[in-house]
């Protein structure tokens, strides 16, 4: 089970959260062809490595936030508020265990 640091409430057990899919997926409002729409709805990075993902603290503050996690070790490397840019990991540089 993950220990997830909510940027509002601090570290809490995974049971308090709902996973909400890959973060930073946006759609160009001017483009509405089938290809772009299909990619927006369905295509995902699904990385073997570092993923930016959304969580919602459903049994806590109720808020959405973003998280950087290594999908091989499941180590959480950073969490940050929605709307904030994806942090660069170069300074923390934590190796995956």
């Amino acid at each position, binding site marked *: 089970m993950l220990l997830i640091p909510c940027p509002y409430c601090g570290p809490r057990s995974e049971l308090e959260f709902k996973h909400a899919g890959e973060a930073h997926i946006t759609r160009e409002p001017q483009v509405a062809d089938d290809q772009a729409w*299909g*990619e927006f709805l369905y*295509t*995902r990075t699904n*990385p*073997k490595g570092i993923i930016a993902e959304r969580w919602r603290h459903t049994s806590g503050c109720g808020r959405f936030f973003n998280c950087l996690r290594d999908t091989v070790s499941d180590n959480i490397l950073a969490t940050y508020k929605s709307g904030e840019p994806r942090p660069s990991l170069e300074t923390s540089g934590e190796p995956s265990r």
Partner: protein
Amino acid sequence: MRFSLLSLIRQSFAHNTGWPEQWRSPEPKPSYDAIIIGGGGHGLATAYYMAAEHGMRNIAVVEKGWIGGGNTGRNTTIIRSNYLWEESEALYGHAMTLWQDLSQVLNYNVMYSPRGVMMLAHNIHDVQVFKRHVHANRLAGTDNEWLTPEQAKAFCPILNISKDIRYPVIGASLQRRGGTARHDAVAWGYARAASALGVDILQNCEVTAITRDASGAVAGIETTRGTIATKRIGVVAAGNTSHVMSMAGVRLPLESYPLQALVSEPVKPVMPCVVMSNTIHAYMSQSDKGELVIGAGTDAYISYSQTGGLHIATHTLDAICEMFPNVRRLRMLRNWGGIVDVTPDRSPIIGKTPVPGLFLNCGWGTGGFKATPGSGHVFAHQVATGEPHPINAPFSLDRFRTGRLIDEAAAAAVAH
């Protein structure tokens, strides 16, 4: 050497010291006519049918670990074909037909056992969904029938059908032709038969790059055992598919999740069939060794860790203990996870990709073992001829652009 009563007797007199290796372990050749990436059941079956039915002998299966060490060797081996949509009924039905005499065809006992798969309904929604499946299946000629709780208990005597439990059983659907098979034997049987036809099976050979020529078409692969040239690649890498396809710059509608299973200590036969409950995330059968084989749910997040959270297994064991109270005091022997590649509509992707020469068979998610022979058979056609077999044509990658999804997700929520 063919397996027969005679060879068994001969070998037993020789103290079983004379059995030859079941498949060759050659060095990689510099080039092949086609390469299958992924030595799970689906990849090995693909190679076998490419050799047996399409006459392609200069081909290889490339596996990063040992064959069958992925989801093939980690699954709970439930086989059924009672899916909702016609496209699925054709695909899983094709596999069901091939299972019937697979042991004879491969001359390898895959222990296919049509002991019946019973799916429990615990609420009105389940009843409506399962009855819809039963009717759709019967119209399509796929066997599936509705049972009352009493009939369900007659079919599986250890099932608890009392009305005062948290999720009482209020009905069930039963596919009698459904059942189980021995997962390792499926991988080994296809490997042995493919190898005998000349297919090279290259284990401990991880693909690290897919190379392309000036026109963008496939030119070969880089592996931990060297460079291999080929103009045709079939990717059958289950949970690692997004990762392998990123080597060719292709992004996919897939997410990889841990799915876990566990087995109990072995006991005398207590369970004559397979019982599944999608609603409370638990399913169980008994292996021929006597272990109760229990399947749990997926974790909530993408992971390549090959382990699942303990709370997921605990949740399943809660349900198992309620459905089967007499197994409560059994000890669990082993618990493990596999990484399953899940599509948005819970149907597989089998077909072409935007890269010429690169074909894809993935997205089997939590329930592809049952389809192994059918999947390999149609994908062999796809890779060998370049065009889809009529059965896999609807399962194209393009359906996520056109919107022609094959939505088993809405139909079943979870599917094994």
